[in-house]
Each structure stands twice: as C-alpha cells, then as structure tokens.
C-alpha cells in the first residue's frame, strides 16, 4: 500500500461524515416514526373502519315472494323448498374428478360438467356454483348421506315458486322467470339490481305475477358476512341481520274449486269459460283449455316442451278468455234487439220468416231453412231467427248497434291486471273509415248491417266481454269485472252500481227471450236447463261461422259441418245468467270449432253453472289476508 493507512486528515473527514450520515439517518428514522404515528395513532379510527369494510360485506337476504291465493285462501302460487347442490371448487383437489364422483348420484351429463368447469374458471375457486336444482327429496337425501365422500359439495335448501294447481290457474296467475339483462336495465327496477342479481331470483313474466311483480317481490333483508380477500365467506353475523320481508299476498276473486270444475267441463276442447258474480263483477272462473303447467316454466322449460306447446293447434299458451277474439254469432242478437228498441221498434213488432230474405242482390238465409213463421222479438230471440233480425237490420243504423254493444261491454278491455287483453272489433262507420281509409270500401253498406245484427261480419269479442255482456243484460248495471280483491294492505273499492245509459225496459224482452231459449219448449238451448228451479237459467246460443260451405264443397259431398276439417268448423258459443228473477251469476262459454252453440257450448255452461250455483260462493265470506297478518293463529286455508 502506497498510501499511509494512518492519514489523519482522511480519517477525520470520514469520521465527520459518518457522524453526519448517522445523524441524517436518525432524522429519516424520526420521519418514518412520525409517519407511523400518523397512521397508527392519529388516523387509527379511519383505518379501523376501512379494515372492517374490507372484512365485512353486506349480503342481501332474498325475500320470499308473496303468495297468490284464491277467494277462500287456497294457494294458487306459493313457495316451496328447492333442494339444490352448490359446489365450492376450493374445497376439492380436482374439480373435474369431484364432479365425476357427484354424477354417480345425480344425473350430470358430461357437457353439463364441462360447462360447470368453465364457469369455475371464470368465477374463481371460492364462489359457490349451482350445479343442480329442484332435486327430489330422494336424490337430495342420498347426496347428504354420501357427503363425507363428496368433497366440494354444499347441499342447500332454497326457495322456488310453486303453483299447486298447475295448469288450472295458469292463465290467471301467470308464471315467473329468470332475471334478464333487460330486467336489470329497466328503469322500474332501479335500486333493486342487487336483489335481482341474487342467484335463483325470479321475476313475474306473465299474468298477475307480472302485473303485481313489485308487490309480490317483497323487501330484501341484509346480513353482514366476514370475507377474505378472495371473497370467501369466513363467518356469517346473523345476530345483526335485518330479516327480509315477504311480498304482499294477493287475494283473488277466483274460486279455484270452480275453476278446476270448469277446466274439467272444457277438457278435450279448445275452449274458454268465464263466470262472473253479476253484483260485484268478481271473476269466479277464468278457464282456458288446453292449458300448460307454469311449474315447467319456473324450473326452466325444455325446448321440446316449448316447441310442442307452440305448435299445438289448440294453442295451449293462448289465454283464450282474454286474448282470443271470436265472432259472437247469435249471442249478439241480444244486443241487436236492444238497438232496435233504441231506434223505436217495439218488442211486439212481428216478422214472418219464410227461411230467407232477399236483400240487395241476394238471399240472406235463416239457419232454419224451412222458416220460423210469424215471430215477435221475444220469439225471435228464443228461436234465434235470423230473418227477423235481417228485417230489423234493413232500417237499423250500425252506429246505434255499436253504441249498444259498447254499453254492454264489447269492444273494450277491463282493468283486471292480466296483460294481453284483446279489445275485439265492434264495426261502425268510423271504424270502417279508419280501417279501409281511402278505398271505396270506406263507406258503410247497409248490407253489412245484416251481418252485424247476427254477430257475423267484422264483429269479434272475447269470452270475457261476452260474460260481461250477459251480466249487464241480467242487471242493467255497468258490471265491471275484477280479479284482484286484496293486495298487501290495499283493497279494491266496493263496486258501484252505475245503471247502463239505456232505458231499463229495453232489457225486459231480451231477458224474457233468453229465459225462453232455455226453459220453453222449442227454445234453442233446452240442454242448458238447470235441475234446481231456484237457479232458473236464461241464456243465448251462438254459432259463428268460420268457413262458408261453398258449392264446390257440396259437389264433393261436404254438406254437414262435421265433414269439414276441425279448423274450418263453426265456433260454438253460449252466454247465460242465473237465476232469472234475481241474477247472481253470469257465464260465457266458447268452444272453438265446436259446430253448434246449443250442442257444444250450452251443456258445458250448464255444467259449470250447476257447480257454481251448488256452491254459491258469493254467499260465503271471502278470505282476507290482512286478518291473517294481524292474527297469526287464524285459519289460513278457507
């Protein structure tokens, strides 16, 4: 070493600088200590809160969906246990082999396993994944028994919608379905997104489930859970939870026993039936056949079932009482009779029916080709004589007919809460101008009125409208149908009996005629006569043409409607009310392509009305869910 290692100046500089360095370091340490003091002492509370926010997550507790019950508290839509299997991949060594093991106990095809494995990859190992739901109790208990040998499996009991009466009430209640992106974006669901995102959460898709979805949904509860950084739940803090509130109970006017009876009466046909309490407007029966099982939609409908429902010519998915329209046929003669009186025709006005009437350039035939002879208005209704009404039509203004028809409930929808109601068509001059705007057909031809008076031509109505028509004829009051009596703490106001804006005396001849239709010999619907004279029934048949048998058809030997293919046969209709002198119930039945109102519709209406009058539900106290809510010990089922 060249340089003296004992260079005193060098050592002095180093010593000074080393002390300086040590002092500087101590200063930096003081700064770090200061920072530590700030974090751990001054801002302690803030960071404690942040640490708690880290560990504790709010978990939404899904509320039970409100029940839908019938007039006497019988459940039409409730909730049942949904036995399902969740799978936590984190608790297994190998998710794929664990799934294979599970597939020994429940049906879990390979493509489904692949889909689950892909989902695991997407959502991470700590998120439970639903691998199967709606297991039978047998399957569920077997899995529970084998649980020690099935790593990762987490059996869970959830809730799912249940429709105890299945197809019988499908069109009233509707069904629920899985939440879609459109639901999450809907402005009406603002603030409810978290609830809607809960696994297995359902929203109303059809019927009352859809209209009253908000009321039925209930209020979500909250529970804090302790989670780790990966979102895995370490602990549930149940004592601080706010419980969810079940949705409101909907109490309906429907009597499910009668509903089932009506469905049975219509079984095998493509048909609809509506029964009303004429004093309140309560819809007691809203039947449509064939129907479908809403439980199938809830669980997730198979493509095969969906296809067969859609392709069935009997249209099981169509809510026929509300959403299907039919030419009302001769049931419309009740309206024509009143319209004639409005125009100054007296019920005593007589017409001789020779079986046909020449008008314009052709004959209009009566259904009875040999003719009815001389009839007054009552007789014309009793026998459903076409020529009588053709004769009236020659001098009737179609606008007057349309006005009466609307006053009796046709050509309009009602506030029922069930979506998809059709208005039907009540033709008048204005309708024709709008419908055929600009073409020569835009003006009304009197010949068309001849079709309208017998309920043909452009006239269409829904079975519900026909039932309302029967109820209004029976009472002379603006009966308004209703189906939801009570929802939550709200209740429909008592119906107001507003008289129809027509001279009440005009109804007398119609009621007398309808009475004769059923109860006098020679009436068209003797088959609808009630066994119990206390429930004497008045009605009117209708047979509405779907297809006119042509000369070519006759040449081929097709003369009777039975020879036609089903879809070309006439519709069969019947409207009625009972008892005649103090009406309580009204009913309308439509059997699609049933050929004859008297033969097909009237007996079914009689069958339904017999069930209704035997039970006489309007005389019984209806169920009030609010009474149950206030008094938990009260009997729930009526």
């Amino acid at each position, binding site marked *: *070493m*060249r*340089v003296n*290692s004992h*260079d005193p*100046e*060098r*050592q002095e*500089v*180093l*010593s000074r*600088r*080393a*002390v300086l*360095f*040590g002092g500087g*370091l*101590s200063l*930096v*340490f003081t*700064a*770090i*200590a200061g*920072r*530590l*003091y700030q*974090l*751990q*002492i001054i*801002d*302690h509370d*803030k*960071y*404690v809160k*942040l*640490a708690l926010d*880290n*560990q504790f997550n709010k978990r939404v507790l899904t509320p039970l969906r409100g029940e839908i019950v019938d007039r006497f508290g019988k459940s039409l839509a409730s909730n049942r246990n949904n036995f399902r299997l969740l799978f936590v991949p984190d608790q297994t060594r190998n998710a794929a082999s664990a799934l294979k093991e599970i597939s020994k106990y429940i049906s879990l095809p390979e493509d489904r396993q692949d889909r689950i494995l892909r989902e695991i990859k997407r959502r991470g190992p700590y998120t439970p994944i639903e691998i199967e739901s709606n297991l039978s109790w047998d399957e569920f208990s077997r899995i529970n028994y084998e649980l020690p040998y099935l790593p990762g499996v987490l059996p869970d009991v959830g809730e799912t919608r249940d429709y105890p009466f299945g197809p019988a009430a499908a069109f009233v209640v509707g069904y629920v379905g899985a939440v879609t992106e459109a639901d999450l974006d809907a402005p009406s669901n603002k603030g409810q997104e978290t609830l809607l995102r809960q696994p297995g959460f359902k929203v109303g898709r059809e019927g009352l489930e859809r209209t009253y979805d908000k009321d039925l949904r209930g209020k979500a509860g909250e529970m804090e859970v*302790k*989670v*780790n*950084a*990966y979102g895995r739940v*370490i602990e549930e803090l149940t004592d601080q939870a706010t419980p969810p509130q079940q949705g409101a109970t909907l109490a309906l006017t429907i009597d499910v026993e009668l509903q089932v009876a009506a469905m049975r009466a219509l079984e095998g046909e493509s048909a609809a039936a509506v029964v009303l309490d004429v004093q309140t407007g309560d819809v007691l029966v809203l039947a449509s056949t064939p129907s479908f099982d809403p439980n199938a939609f809830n669980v997730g409908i198979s493509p095969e079932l969906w296809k067969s429902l859609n392709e069935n010519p009997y249209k099981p998915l169509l809510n026929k009482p509300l959403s299907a329209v039919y030419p009302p046929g001769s049931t419309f003669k009740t309206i024509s009779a009143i319209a004639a009186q409005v125009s100054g025709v007296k019920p005593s006005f007589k017409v001789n029916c020779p079986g046909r009437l020449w008008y314009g350039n052709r004959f209009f035939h009566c259904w009875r080709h040999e003719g009815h002879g001389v009839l007054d208005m009552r007789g014309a209704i009793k026998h459903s004589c076409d020529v009588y009404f053709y004769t009236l039509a020659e001098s009737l203004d179609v606008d007057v007919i349309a006005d009466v028809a609307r006053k009796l409930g046709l050509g309009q929808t009602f506030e029922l809460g069930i979506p998809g109601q059709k208005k039907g068509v009540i033709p008048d001059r204005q309708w024709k101008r709008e419908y055929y705007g600009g073409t020569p057909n835009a003006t009304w031809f009197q010949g068309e009125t001849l079709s309208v008076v017998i309920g043909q031509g452009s006239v269409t109505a829904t079975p519900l409208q026909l039932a309302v028509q029967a109820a209004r004829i029976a009472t002379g009051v603006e009966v308004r149908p209703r189906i939801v009596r009570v929802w939550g703490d709200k209740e429909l106001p008592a119906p107001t009996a507003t008289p129809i804006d027509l001279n009440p005396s005009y109804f007398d001849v119609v009621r007398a005629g309808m009475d004769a239709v059923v109860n006098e010999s020679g009436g068209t619907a003797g088959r609808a006569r009630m066994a119990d004279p206390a429930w004497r029934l008045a009605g009117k048949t209708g047979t509405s043409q779907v297809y006119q048998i042509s000369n070519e058809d006759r040449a081929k030997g097709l003369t009777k409607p039975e020879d036609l293919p089903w879809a070309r046969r006439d519709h069969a209709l019947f409207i009625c009310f009972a008892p005649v002198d103090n009406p309580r119930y009204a009913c309308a039945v439509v059997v699609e392509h049933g050929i004859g109102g008297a033969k097909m519709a009237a007996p079914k209406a009689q069958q339904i009305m017999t069930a209704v009058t035997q039970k006489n539900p309007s005389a019984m106290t209806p169920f009030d869910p609010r009474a149950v809510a206030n008094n938990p010990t009260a009997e729930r089922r009526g």
Partner: protein
Amino acid sequence: MAAIILSSRRKGLREKLSQLHWPLIVMLTLIALAGVATLYSAAGGSWQPWAMKHGLRFAVSVVMMIGIGLVSMRYWVSLAYPIYFVALGALALVPLIGEVNMGAQRWIEVGGMQFQPSELMKIGLVLGLARYYQGLRAEQVSHILHLIPPLLMIGAPVGLVFIQPDLGTAMLLGATGVIMVFLAGLSWRIGFLGLLGAVGAGYSAYRFEFLKPYQVERILTFLNPDRDPLGQGYHLLQSKIGLGSGGLEGKGYMMGTQSQLKFLPEMQTDFIFTIFGEEFGFIGAMALLLLYLTVILTGINIALRAKTHFARMTAMGVVATFSLYVLINTGMVMGLFPVVGVPLPLVSYGGTVMVTIMAGFGLVMSAHMSREQEALGRLS
C-alpha cells in the same frame, strides 16, 4: 477459509470468538426472530411454508457471518477488487445466460445452483469502492480525475441491473455508491453541483415532457412488473389499512385481519412490516425500528473505531446498504416512497437478501476484529 482463520496470528479460535461483537449478533438475531414470528403468523399459525426455512437460513447465515468476521481485513483488502470484478462479470453474463423469472432476468446458474449476481454486487461494490479510496489521500478525493473511476465502478453495475430490469436493486446500488463517495470526503461543492445537476435533469425531463405520463407509467410497470397489478395503489392502501388499524397496541399476535384474511399482497416479503405493525401496533413497530437504528448506529461506531481506512469504508458501506433497505422498505409500506420492491432485511422471507446482509455484517465484524487486534497488539 478455515485455514486462513486458524493460521492468523496463531491465536486460539476460542479467544477470537470471545472478541466478536456479541451485542451486534444478539440484535441481528432478535430482528431475525421477529421475522420468524411474523412469518409464522402470516402462514396462519404454521411453520410452513416460511417461518421454519427463515429460521434455518438465519442460523446458517450467522455461522457464515462469524466465519467472514474471523477472516482478517488484510485478506479482504486483497480480495476486494477480484470480488468486485467477478460480480461485474457475472452481471454482464445475466442478459446472455440468465433465467427469465417474472419478466426479469436476474438469475444465473453456477454449478447447478441458482445465483443472483446483483446480490454479490452489493458486497462487491462496497469492497471495490473501499479498496479504491484506501489508495487516495483526502485532498485527491474531489479531484476530477480521481472521480471518474468510482463513477464508472458505480455506473457499470447500476446500468446492468437496471436493464434486467430491477429498479429497486439498481437504485440501492447507486445510492450506496454515492453515499460511499460522499463518506470518502467528496467536497461539498462538487456534491452540491452533482445533486443540482441530477435534480435539474430530472425536472427538465418532467417539465419539457420528454415522457408522457402514460409512458412514465409504462416504464415503471416494465421495470417492476408486480408494482401495482390491481391499480389505484391497491397494495399500498391495504398496507396502510393494516398499519393504521393496528393502532397503539396492535390487534395481537396472529390476530391481524388484513394479513389473516389475505388482503395484504406479498405479505411474506415486501409487506411484512405491515403484518408486524398490524399485530404489534405502534409500540411493536417502534421497537423494531429502534432495534434497526441501534444496529445501524452500532455499525457506524464499529466503523469509526476500525484500524484501516479500507475497514472503515467497508463497514460504512455495509451500514449504508442495510440502512437503505430498512428505510426504503418501511417508507414504502407507509406510502412515503413509491412501491419498488425492496425487502425488510432479516425479516422478509427470501434467502439471497439474508445471505447478502449477513455477509455484509461479516465484513463489519471483521472491521471490528481489526480494531481488537490492534489494541491487543499494542498491549502485548
């Protein structure tokens, strides 16, 4: 090595052992035990996978440190340049034969063992600079011609480490080198001008927007890939939550929610101080910091009493490296410095850093022994 130890001065091993600076060894052991305890807690109350290994590594490292300490400073003087250039050569080989790990080339294989040349360089640079200044008189230090060699000696390894890329180690090496030049007696004027120049260059780069913000972001992410994977300073926030929620007395051993629930990232390495602070609170964290400060001041004290300029410079260089580790790491987990990925020495899990640090303290120990030898020599 054993031969060198035994042959030196014909003194008994037992006598030499008694002359070791045992308080320093005890303090280092206390720090390492804090590391073992914290790693045990970080694993949810388990010796695996970190605590056991950490303890064993420290035991081996202590033996190594004592071995290095027993080697006389005379040998280290002659080994200083060779060690520096071996380290530099190995660093230069990294881009050619290095292993790519987490987006950076840091490792090379020697005889089937993985080895990180940048760690060897931490010792090599200290020894090399100490050796260089051993040959300079005080008035020569600030001479421009005598400034070029140390700047090259610092610049070359810093550049090589920077391109690996390992920003943290490059900064650590550069800062250690600059501190040693300052300790050697660089005139305040030149030091001030140099500092001014560096700040000016950095400011103008920022001011005239040579780099757009996103480019700065990209470069930083490139240099340190695990800097902030979740964005928005997630790591740092979780660390501050951990420390802050610990409060004065801490949440108790193995009770830290941030660590036990795994909200802390990299908790066994860079963020271990957070676990310690969360579970033992301000009191515990301050105790650990004071322990570190005491080790540093003890090291300075040893350096000041060492016999040769080389020994003094070497000990000071080791102390500087150690101090930088402690300050950068603790400053980082508290949000005082950017997250650059520097471990807390002897506490963080990781073998290579522990070996480097303990080897450094071996040199400090050797400097301490050189003083003892001198004193004893005078007495006899």
